[in-house]
């Protein structure tokens, strides 16, 4: 293999992302001076999109992942985007999982709490904390919501195009057959806290292609809400409803 042929092979490896940082730097320096290798790289680099094509039998992510992401960009995201560690205590399963990790940590420390091991143990603690956060994430969105929405002891209130589901202080809108809102508009939920003088904005959302939307409305204080409404609002949401709500449900 000629020296230059080796560079062409390296250009392919660079396009794939299979070079170490030092090698990548070396090959990029060569590309800057070699038109042939630059052309090879340019021809092969876009193939990452093809290589990454999902396999046909790949199970999709949790549908709650979409809700979680959209909740973070919603106008009312201040509440929803709190660090996971501050949201977590509302969820009993999280506490069980967290307690297990803490117990494991204590056990580990008891076994090997020597000074020279402390640095390594701290690293493990950080890794475990990240794991707890990840677990919290999943439990919160997927398990709890799925349980709430399907539970026989959930309180359900039919509304236009769906129902309000409440269980253990949590509340969701479970909507179906919703038409897409006009271009440049979204649906927005509204809540009336007990004792409030006016309705307050909650999440904005869009139904999926089948007209289905599952929208978390309250994480722990559903009992303090007296009304829930949904209206069509401009993208980004509104501070007060600007159109007639499609429904206003009294929870009293």
């Amino acid at each position: 293999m000629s020296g230059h042929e080796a560079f062409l092979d390296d250009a392919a490896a660079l396009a794939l992302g299979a070079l170490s940082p030092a090698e990548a730097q070396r090959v990029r320096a060569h590309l800057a001076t070699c038109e042939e290798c630059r052309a090879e790289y340019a021809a092969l680099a876009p193939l990452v999109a093809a290589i990454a094509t999902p396999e046909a039998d790949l199970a999709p992510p949790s549908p709650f992942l979409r809700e979680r992401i959209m909740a973070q960009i919603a106008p009312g995201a201040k509440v929803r985007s709190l660090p996971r560690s501050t949201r977590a205590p509302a969820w009993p399963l999280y506490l069980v999982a967290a307690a297990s990790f803490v117990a494991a940590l204590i056990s580990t420390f008891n076994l090997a709490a020597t000074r020279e091991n402390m640095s390594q143990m701290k690293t493990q603690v950080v890794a475990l904390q990240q794991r707890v956060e990840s677990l919290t994430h999943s439990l919160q969105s997927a398990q709890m919501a799925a349980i709430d929405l399907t539970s026989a002891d959930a309180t359900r209130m039919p509304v236009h195009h769906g129902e309000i589901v409440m269980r253990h202080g949590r509340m969701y809108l479970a909507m179906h057959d919703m038409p897409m809102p006009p271009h440049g508009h979204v649906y927005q939920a509204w809540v009336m806290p007990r004792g409030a003088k006016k309705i307050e904005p909650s999440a904005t959302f869009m139904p999926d292609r089948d007209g289905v939307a599952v929208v978390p409305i309250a994480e722990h204080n559903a009992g303090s809400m007296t009304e829930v409404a949904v209206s069509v609002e401009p993208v980004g949401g509104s501070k007060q409803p600007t159109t007639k709500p499609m429904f206003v449900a009294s929870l009293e």
Partner: protein
Amino acid sequence: MRVELRKAANIANVSDDAERLMERVRARDSVAFEQLYDEHHRIVWSIAMRVLGEREAAEDVTQAVFMKLWNAPERFVGGNFVGWLARVARNRALDALRSRSLRSTEELPAALPEEERLEDLAFARLDAGQVRRALAALPPEQRSAIELGFFGGLTHEAIAARTGDPLGTVKTRIRSGLRKLRTALDGKIER
């Protein structure tokens, strides 16, 4: 000429779709963001699952990628949106591997450049089934080397160490496989 015209038309379509949506995302249009998520989350999810192998971590990566897209849409400088998204997803998944201390920084390959404009947009218009068939048609050793490099996060040296093949052989397999894939997909575009 026919191929070039076809590619040019495809480039225009994809560029319009992605760049129009990304322009709306830059203007904080959450509907455009939701459309991008609905159309493209599967490729991010797929990469995260292939790299990390577990759903919780893959969901975290998928969420991080789309939040990055929302919070820093200017990082997409135009071109092949799917290719750019795949690079971002792969880089973020490798970051997750690092943070889990499963692999050291030295063992992982360099991140794919995210600020680079990938001009070849035609592949983004291909049906996923066509792409899968093109991948499946590669000789197993070439496909394996490509997948270990992209999803396994292995350098070509690490691939050689794992498979027991000479480094030069691994390099050639990667390039030959990519070129065959390119040729196969070009053929699909022509039809």
